[in-house]
């Protein structure tokens, strides 16, 4: 017996989805949330337009909002775990109100804090994060049914006129790589990738 409502969403894999996203990108910014989310972003192949978080759980979407406001002509992707987003649900309202059309948010939802020992989140099986996003005012929020649907939603978001949120159900696998934890170098390379400054 389970309290989880039936969903027509396939359980996918974080690293696979991250690779599919990165394969579509040129100079778009990608903000990787704390833990496995940015580990898989790193493992998918480092690019200077990637920003990797080493703490501040829950701030991937706010950081991405800042990038999107500063550079409205550049598309910004943010990858966040469901547990991280629970830390900062209020940011969905802020983003809905600011409505940057160049922002695409992906929520990697496995219902667990995988990195701390796979404990279930308080939302697991009860809270629908896409429904929360819709209720927060993010009208372009939907679950990806499978990998093809994920790719279709990513491509749609690239020409969207409102911020997009894509929920993906993922398995309980850990991250594939480990981000090199050098915050200054991460930030400096990202600023280079954003065209803000030259590397020394």
């Amino acid at each position: 017996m389970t309290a989880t409502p039936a969903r027509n969403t396939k359980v996918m894999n974080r690293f696979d989805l991250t690779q599919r996203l990165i394969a579509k990108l040129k100079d778009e910014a990608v903000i990787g949330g704390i833990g496995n989310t940015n580990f898989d972003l790193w493992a998918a192949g480092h690019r200077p337009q990637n920003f990797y978080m080493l703490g501040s759980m829950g701030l991937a979407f706010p950081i991405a909002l800042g990038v999107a406001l500063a550079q409205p002509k550049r598309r910004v992707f943010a990858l966040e775990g469901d547990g991280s987003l629970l830390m900062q649900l209020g940011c969905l309202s802020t983003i809905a109100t600011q409505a940057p059309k160049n922002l695409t948010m992906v929520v990697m939802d496995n219902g667990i804090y995988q990195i701390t020992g796979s404990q279930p989140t308080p939302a697991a099986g009860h809270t629908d994060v896409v429904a929360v996003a819709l209720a927060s005012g993010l009208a372009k929020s939907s679950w990806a049914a499978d990998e093809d649907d994920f790719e279709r939603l990513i491509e749609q978001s690239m020409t969207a006129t409102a911020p997009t949120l894509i929920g993906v159900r993922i398995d309980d696998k850990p991250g594939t790589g480990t981000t090199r934890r050098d915050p200054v170098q991460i930030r400096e390379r990202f600023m280079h990738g954003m065209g803000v400054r030259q590397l020394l």
Partner: protein
Amino acid sequence: MAASAEQSSAQKQASPATTWHGIVLETLKRNEIRLVPYVPDRVLTTLIKNLHADPYFTTFPTAREEEAVGIVSGAWMAGMRGAVLMQTSGFATLANVLASLAVPYQIPLIMFVSERGTLGEFNYGQALVCRTMRPVLDSLAVEHHTVTRLDELEFIADRSIKQAVTTQAPVALILSPLLTGGKTFDK
């Protein structure tokens, strides 16, 4: 004395702003700080109203102070300067984001904190939370100044913003009730 008075008078002429919030707004503008997310405070009301009224600024409320810190951090890395407005109790929620984002990534996070909890505080909780603020800043070696005088505000704010940007380090400017009038029981 005469030279000092003359200098002070020249400074007054150079800046049309004679209120603390007017000086803060002009100093933000002069330093090209356009993005100002905030969690409101009674004392900050006029400043927030005037920021909204000025098309130079992109200013909006956030649900939490750390959210605002994330936003200005992202914006700075993408070439847009920002500052965060909050009150003392809001600052108390920031230890994690200061220690894991602003300080280690060397981000010039500029914070204006309206000081509650001292000089006539009527809420014991505010008085206690205020005592956590400077120890947190000191423990991370974050530059901070408590502004008490109108005639020092422009100098402290302008120099602190420039230092934050050039040294890529956060700064907290604590706006004392001596400067702002604070919030008192009958309000």
